[in-house]
């Protein structure tokens, strides 16, 4: 029989769970745990400079690897600093476990020093949270936390650990449970066979079908099945912002992504389709535009692991609750067995129509002799990294340009805060990826507004040698805000100008990194190449781009999917 303190049990459980890295920041209520961490070397701890960054690091790691990330912080301010990160992960269904210290259980409710009701504060933004009530339950709680975080529709789980649960000299028997069973939590493991059959019949009968694939395809590790099904059927595929990479962007059946800043051809094809196969997507408002005008002629098959995502905003004709990979596999089986094939004539004229849409817009943008265009920066990075980098982004115009002009052929490579839209996400997320994939190219595309929300992490990068490439599309403005002000507020740029920018080159150097400023068009490609050749250096590329550029296409507010601005002057 092995006797361990609560703190040692916690760390042992992390080891037994197979956790390699945890990201965190110490403080009073977590000190017993930090001491236990010190006395072992299996679980490695990364000391960030702000707890929000620890959560984004765990998140970036989880998105790239498909495995849950782990965070450790202290009570009170340590815990509340994680909230934005947790909410970010929650909105995008990212598996993670956040371990928070708490004041001793005997002090709870007394407004003790650094006491915050973390269970209450985090409740609306977690998949679940658990408070430890006895040291002996720690292994069980940890096992359950990872199980809940990573199964079904994944999400963040908070574990609140009062300090007296980790007291060093109180020891208990350590048993790591082999299995978790929860009578009240049983995520679906397969879809309903009858519904799947019905869906396949509808696919075969469709004349203007489209596959609308969301983040669930990436999270559910189903891009292989999705790609195979799309190829078998010959249907066009559009991805959501979260689903990018779930279907190869350079495949000729890919229409790019859809929605507010989606491609013209995706939005047009959705609007005119007669059948939408929605896979792991949730018809959110950045996709549908006005729901009452959404795709008037389309019938909808909707596959999702989360029943609450089905018929929430748009009613599904055939709902299928289940893991997307299992359901798609079953569909593939039925398609293989079936003697029927999609209507070739109808598909041919559908593709002809789609190709006309493609030719009409095709993500064109105006180039300039004087200014560097943000779009060309992204295209250059795509070329230089052979389209194979992990790209994280912050939030704003640069995010949309990165998603539009970097062609992702693999899942888990495009890493952004799609649901919450959290500025400050990009750099720590990139760090989380680089730590676990040191041999891969990791690029953070950011803006001068966003990067300053977690710039302190440049210090963490020096400490742990994380040579990510930071591409700052510097437009000297909160560009996305400014674009909305141009379009909706007669260009009254209320608080969207970023004055007093630091010298980012010197700043990077101050942290021991390399800084490169690019402001002339002809320097762009050579300096980018120079930067990417420095494999073991963090390079901060401060690139002065056209400050007047807007992101297009852009859906017209309260319109249907097909109502878009294609440039500052063209509206369709």
């Amino acid at each position: 029989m092995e006797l361990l303190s609560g703190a040692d049990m916690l760390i042992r459980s992390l080891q037994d769970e197979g956790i390699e890295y945890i990201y965190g920041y110490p403080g009073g209520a977590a000190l017993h745990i930090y001491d236990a961490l010190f006395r072992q070397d299996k679980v490695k701890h990364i000391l960030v400079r702000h707890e929000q960054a620890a959560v984004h690091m765990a998140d970036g790691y989880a998105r790239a690897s498909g495995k849950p990330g782990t965070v450790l912080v202290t009570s009170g301010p340590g815990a509340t600093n994680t909230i934005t990160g947790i909410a970010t992960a929650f909105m995008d269904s990212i598996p993670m476990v956040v371990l928070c210290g708490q004041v001793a259980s005997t002090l709870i409710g007394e407004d003790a020093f650094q006491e915050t009701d973390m269970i209450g504060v985090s409740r609306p933004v977690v998949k679940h949270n658990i408070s430890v009530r006895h040291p002996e339950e720690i292994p069980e709680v940890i096992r359950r936390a990872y199980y809940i975080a990573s199964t079904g529709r994944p999400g963040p789980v908070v574990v609140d650990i009062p300090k007296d649960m980790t007291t060093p000299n109180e020891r208990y028997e350590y048993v790591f449970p082999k299995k978790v069973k929860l009578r009240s939590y049983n995520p679906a493991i397969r879809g309903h066979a009858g519904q799947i059959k019905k869906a396949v019949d509808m696919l075969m009968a469709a004349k203007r079908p489209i596959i609308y694939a969301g983040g669930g395809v990436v999270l559910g590790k189903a891009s292989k099945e999705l790609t195979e099904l799309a190829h078998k059927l010959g249907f066009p595929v559009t991805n959501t912002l979260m689903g990018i990479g779930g279907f190869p962007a350079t495949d000729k059946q890919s229409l790019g992504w859809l929605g507010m800043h989606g491609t013209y051809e995706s939005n047009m094809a959705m609007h005119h389709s007669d059948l939408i196969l929605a896979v792991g997507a949730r018809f959110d408002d950045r996709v549908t535009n006005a729901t009452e005008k959404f795709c008037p002629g389309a019938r909808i098959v909707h596959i999702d692991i989360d029943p609450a995502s089905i018929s929430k905003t748009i009613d599904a004709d055939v709902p299928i609750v289940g893991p997307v990979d299992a359901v798609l596999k079953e569909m593939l089986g039925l398609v293989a067995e079936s003697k029927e094939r999609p209507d070739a004539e109808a598909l041919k004229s559908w593709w002809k129509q789609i190709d006309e849409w493609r030719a009409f817009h095709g993500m064109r943008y105006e180039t300039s002799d004087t200014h560097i265009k943000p779009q060309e920066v992204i295209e250059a990075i795509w070329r230089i990294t052979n389209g194979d980098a992990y790209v994280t982004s912050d939030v704003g115009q640069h995010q949309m340009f990165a998603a539009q002009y970097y062609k992702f052929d693999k899942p888990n490579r495009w890493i952004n805060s799609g649901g919450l839209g959290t500025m400050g996400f990009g750099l720590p997320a990139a760090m989380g990826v680089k730590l676990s994939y040191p041999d891969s190219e990791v690029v953070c595309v950011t803006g001068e507004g966003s990067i300053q929300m977690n710039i302190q992490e440049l210090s963490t990068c020096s400490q742990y040698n994380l040579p990510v490439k930071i591409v700052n599309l510097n437009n000297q403005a909160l560009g996305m805000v400014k674009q909305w002000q141009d379009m909706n507020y007669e260009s009254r740029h209320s608080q969207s100008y970023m004055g007093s920018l630091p010298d980012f080159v010197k700043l990077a150097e101050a942290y021991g990194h390399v800084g490169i400023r690019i402001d002339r068009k002809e320097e762009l490609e050579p300096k980018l190449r120079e930067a990417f050749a420095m494999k073991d250096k963090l390079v901060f590329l401060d690139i002065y781009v056209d400050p007047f550029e807007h992101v297009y296409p852009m859906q017209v507010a309260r319109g249907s999917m097909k109502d878009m601005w294609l440039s500052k002057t063209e509206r369709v």
Partner: protein
Amino acid sequence: MRRIISVLLENEPGALSRVVGLFSQRNYNIETLTVAPTEDETLSRLTVTTSGSDKVIEQITKQLNKLIEVVKLVDLTEGSHIERELMLVKLKATGSQRAEIKRTVDIFRGQIVDVTSTIYTVQLAGNSDKLDAFIQAVGPAGVLEVVRSGVSGIARGEKVLSL
């Protein structure tokens, strides 16, 4: 439409606040809420009455089901069911009012459970409409205090909500 949703919940600290939090967070309304442990002490039975379009009700049941501590739930209004609410009312009762109130209480099959020279305290059980009707019948002017338990419900016939 008004619905009665009955939930079996893990009897654990924090479980109730998750249910209540869900309703406020997602802008669903709660008309009444009752909760108490069941014969199996690891479980609580929670009954919530709410209203909304079919779409909203569908979301409410799905979102409730997503809460880890929710073991099972049923929308009782989908089938035939019995609903009861308990009310305690303190009424001004002097002079000729006393006989009149007593008669009304009898008609509604209530009981006078406490008496002073000027007060009757009445206990009444039934569905919510009946309780409303009683208040109307005695006349709101004489009502000093009303305590209602909120609705509890159970399905008719063989149907049971259990593990």
